[in-house]
């Protein structure tokens, strides 16, 4: 066990690609043991991605990117403007609502941050909001993306644990809406303190036109979520239907997507998918060896020796994840820790659907924190602000998200109510 964990940490600290830190640690371990043939390396890694559930990952990426390139994101911003633009801190609320609606179609926070940031940051700066405020808000709001379904982290979690992805998707709805509401509260407070004005409501005719033009876009969540929850399609199939609809909408309806553009997009999404799924594949090997060594059980015993209370365990796990979230890449934490934590979670009787949503929301906060936060870096480079400025400005939004994390951790009903209502016990 020391070899597996120690070599992994060493290789990761040396800046090895995460996938090779995992396979490398596994190879060292196998060589030292000598009684397991090395061919399991190839076998476990390959089987790690031979999964129909994980197939949803590239499709949800693709749907998100198609929306960004195909002019769909722009229509969403117009829609949000018509609905919440008149509240104090107007465009700030527009940012949050756009991301909430976008979250119902795309499964990736980084895709959401890039797409909405490209449209909203210039608009906010032009309306007189500080650049760093706009960037921090878009970043924070984009973390709603993977909590409101569809969601790539839920697909990965479901793929690893066997928990129903449909249930996880339903479990994310209320927490995602709460994130939006709390962020809007934070925007209102900042706007009031600094004296940001409201931009004023749109004229009724313009508001109605914006809503009318966004109706084809609003069919997205209906298709995706309706399809999954009614049991007509699996999450993977729903993702494909969403892709086909996005191609239709942006290519034929809004006419903002060309064939060469589509090919470029496919290549980019494929390469970005591979970066994540290669890590998942490697975790297939690494997680299998960890389980053979009984590491999850040791981990469980350690936690249980501190406390048997589920609420203390959840507190410790949340703190551990928040700290790791600052230091490590989200996917890496998700694939390495999920199998280890599952043993603990089931032993103390925590619902795995509830835990999956808590875990995901927690890791999304990690996307905003330095030194390792993907959304942080996207926003910093997109808005050309410094990491320190961004972090200071983002603190109040992160605080709002941590409050939601605490709420859903200790009121499990917020997560589990919808899955039980729709899909039964």
């Amino acid at each position, binding site marked *: 066990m020391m070899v597996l964990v120690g070599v992994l940490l060493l290789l990761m600290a040396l800046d090895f690609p995460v996938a090779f830190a995992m396979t490398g640690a596994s190879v060292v371990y196998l060589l030292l043991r000598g009684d397991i043939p090395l061919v399991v390396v190839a*076998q476990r890694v390959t089987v790690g991605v031979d999964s129909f559930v994980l197939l949803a990952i590239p499709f949800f990426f693709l749907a998100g990117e198609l929306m960004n390139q195909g002019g769909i994101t722009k229509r969403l911003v117009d829609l949000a403007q018509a609905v919440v633009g008149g509240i104090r801190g107007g465009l700030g609320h527009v940012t949050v609502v756009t991301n909430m609606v976008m979250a119902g179609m795309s499964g990736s926070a*980084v895709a959401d941050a890039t797409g909405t940031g490209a449209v909203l940051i210039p608009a906010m700066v032009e309306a007189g909001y500080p650049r760093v405020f706009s960037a921090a808000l878009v970043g924070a709001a984009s973390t709603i993306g993977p909590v409101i379904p569809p969601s790539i982290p839920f697909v*990965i979690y479901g793929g690893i644990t066997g928990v129903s992805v449909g249930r996880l998707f339903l479990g994310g709805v209320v927490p995602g809406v709460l994130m939006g509401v709390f962020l809007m509260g934070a925007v209102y407070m900042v706007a009031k303190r600094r004296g940001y004005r409201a931009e004023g409501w749109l004229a009724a005719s313009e508001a109605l036109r914006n809503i009318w033009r966004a109706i084809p876009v609003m069919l997205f969540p209906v298709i995706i979520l309706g399809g999954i929850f009614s049991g007509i399609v699996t999450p993977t199939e729903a993702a494909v239907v969403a892709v086909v609809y996005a191609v239709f909408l942006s290519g034929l309806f809004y006419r903002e997507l060309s064939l060469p553009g589509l090919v470029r997009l496919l290549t980019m999404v494929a390469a*970005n998918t591979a970066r994540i799924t290669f890590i998942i594949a490697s975790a297939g090997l690494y997680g299998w060896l960890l389980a053979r060594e009984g590491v999850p059980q040791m981990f469980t015993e350690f936690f249980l020796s501190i406390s048997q209370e589920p609420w203390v365990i959840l507190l410790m796990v949340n703190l551990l994840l928040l700290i790791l979230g600052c230091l490590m890449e989200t996917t890496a934490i998700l694939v390495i820790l999920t199998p280890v934590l599952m043993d603990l979670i089931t032993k103390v009787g925590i619902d795995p659907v509830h835990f999956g949503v808590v875990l995901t929301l927690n890791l999304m906060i990690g996307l905003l924190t330095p030194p390792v936060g993907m959304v942080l870096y996207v926003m910093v480079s997109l808005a050309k602000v410094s990491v320190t400025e961004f972090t200071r400005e983002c603190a109040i939004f992160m605080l709002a998200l941590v409050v939601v994390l605490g709420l859903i951790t200790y009121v499990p009903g917020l997560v589990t109510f919808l899955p039980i209502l729709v899909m039964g016990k």
Partner: protein
Amino acid sequence: MQSVMDRVVGWALAACLAGMTCIVFVSVIFRYLLNSPLIWTEELASLLFAWLTFVGAYVGFRSRSHISIDTLVIFLPAPARRRLTRCVDVGVLLLLALFVWQGIKLTATTWSLEFPAMEISRGFLYLSFPIGCILMAIGIVQSWRRPRPEAASQEGRP
């Protein structure tokens, strides 16, 4: 600077993803509109997914945009960091050599097995790993000779 190989891999990846999309979409159509489910679609789409993963990893190495944790090494002075990066590359190449060897061995031993629905050899699945590893090794060596500073976009992480 795009080499012929970058372009070929790019097209192959795009075709792979487009193929997966079409296959799954067609399977939905056949099941619901035509009421005659196709049994081979899940297997074929998953097979393409494995190829997409391992061949796509080439792009990550080629443009040096794979996911790694540089929290500590950013504190090193630039020359030391360059040397470390080269050492890590060599370490990864050694692992890749091992994976190619074991991957080919696995492909050979599983060649006689078949996918239940597609009735083609399961070796086609296991072959994706060694082939992908060969491409990744080429990607690393290419990135030494022709560094591409404009790393692929950071987009697309959950």
